[in-house]
Structure formats: C-alpha cells, structure tokens
C-alpha cells in the first residue's frame, strides 16, 4: 500500500474541510436563553412537587441542555462527524461501564 492510499484509509464520509459557517451572535444568545429557561424549570422542581414525574423530567431537561451546548456552543452540529464519533465513543463507553458498575453495586434496587 503506498503512502497516498494509506492517507485515505479514513472513510470519506468523515473527511471534509472543517472550515464552516458558525451561527450568528444572536443565535448563540437565543440558545443561551433557552438554556436559562430549562435551568429555571429544573430549579422549579425543587420548589414544586411534581410527584413521580420528577426524576424523568430532570433527566430529560439535563439531556436537552447537554445536547444544546454540545451541538451549538461546541459546534458539533456544524463540524466533521469524525469529532462527534470520537466524543460519543467516550461518552457511550463511560455510560456502559458505569451503568454496569452501578448495577453490580445494586444501586438501582437499593439506591
């Protein structure tokens, strides 16, 4: 295999110029406002009893905030998918390892 071929082993789907148009300042402020509202909703659950919906509601709000920051502020929405793949690999590995660890520790049943 010559050098030129070896340099193209990475899938061409992942390979493209990572120079890209970022959103405007106004869009960033809009995303930050949404994040602020979501945080306010999270904090509201401390003062308002929503019963068994509490944990699912908190988890959904947390995940939405996570994706907003990663997609817009960290530009994964606009960047090469290779960056996303590396980051998600770490995230999925960590989630799998620690879900197993918590299960072994009987966290889900004993809390």
């Amino acid at each position: 295999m010559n050098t030129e071929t070896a340099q193209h082993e990475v899938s061409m789907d992942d390979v493209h110029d990572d120079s890209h148009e970022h959103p405007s300042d106004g869009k960033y402020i809009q995303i930050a406002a949404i994040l602020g509202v979501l945080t306010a909703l999270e904090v509201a659950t401390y003062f308002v009893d929503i019963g068994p919906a509490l944990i699912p509601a908190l988890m959904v709000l947390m995940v939405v905030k996570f994706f907003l920051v990663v997609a817009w502020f960290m530009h994964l929405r606009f960047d090469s998918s290779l960056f996303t793949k590396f980051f998600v690999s770490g995230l999925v590995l960590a989630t799998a390892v620690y879900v197993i660890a918590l299960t072994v520790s009987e966290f889900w049943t004993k809390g």
Partner: protein
Amino acid sequence: MSETSTVDQPVVSTTGLSHTKLAMWVFLGSECLLFGALISTYLIYRGQFAHGPAPGDIFDIPFTSVSSFVLLMSSLTMVLALAALQRGDIRNNRLWLLTTALLGSIFIGGQVYEFTTFLREGLGYTTSPFSSAFFTLTGFHGVHVSLGILMLMSLFISSLRGSLRKEHSETVEIIGLYWHFVDIVWIFIFTVIYLVPSPTS
C-alpha cells in the same frame, strides 16, 4: 518533489481535519470516563453518611442554582469570544474572554464558599464515604474550571501582547471546547447530585 519544497507546503493532515482539534475531542471523550467514575462513586456512597450531615440536609439548592446559571452563561461568553476573533474583532474577543474568566471565577468563589460552609457544619473530607465522594467529585470539577480560567487568562494576556489574532482562532476554539465540556459536566452534576432528591438523616 524536493525535501525543501515539501517543507514549504502548508500542513495538510491525513484526515483533512485539524488534528489538534481532533486530539481535544479524544481527550474530552476520555474525560467522560473520569467524571463517569466520580459521579458513579458518589451515587454509590451518597447514602453512607454515618453520623455526619446527610446530603439532603446540607445542600443549598438556591445558592447552587445561581452558581450553575453563572457557569452556564460563561459558555455563552466563551462562544462569543470565539465568534469575535473569527470576525477579527480583537476588542470584543478580549472583552468576552475576560468575562468568561470572571464568570468562572465567580463559580469557583461560590464553590469555596460552599465547601467552607460544609466544613463549618461538620462535613469534612473524611467525615463519611458520602463526604469523600462529594468533595472528590466537585473538587475535581473545580480544578478543571480553575485550569480553564488559567488558559483563558493566558489567551487574554496573549491578546494584550498582540499575539492572538484572527488566524489563531483555532486555539481559542480548542480552549473553548474544554470550557464547554466543563460546563456540560456541571449540567450533569447539578442535576444528578443536587436536584435529584438526596437521602436525609
């Protein structure tokens, strides 16, 4: 092609992407494992507070909510600093870098206040498995924020010296990635450690 002419060519990576940026994403992926370990350890030990204060008795949710909001907004100022430099707007780049560092410092100040209050209320690092896991997790996060502040200040000083220009925007973007990561880790910590109801004594 002679060796000399090869050296003169612009650096093109094998992927067509910035490998420095790729390395930062790989690093952040590995950081997920570090913080995953610390959060899991906390969850396993949060009910083991022995005779010391329990998490549900000691957490000040309104106070932590404010500091969480401050850190969240620092992600906005960070991305505005990057956008300003990409436009070649050095003045606003400096302004937003300094604002981000200031917001990060306010967050750290809040954490120092929280730790001091907990110590006064009898929750030391070795008081219980819960306290050890809590201080290790939030302390590690605090160290990450502090390192981020140092990096932001080094960018600000570089800018004042005239060595941070539009063509260096990738450096700001990479430090920005680190800063946003620290923010998303806190999004997890704030929800899982503080907002999910904790055991009380």
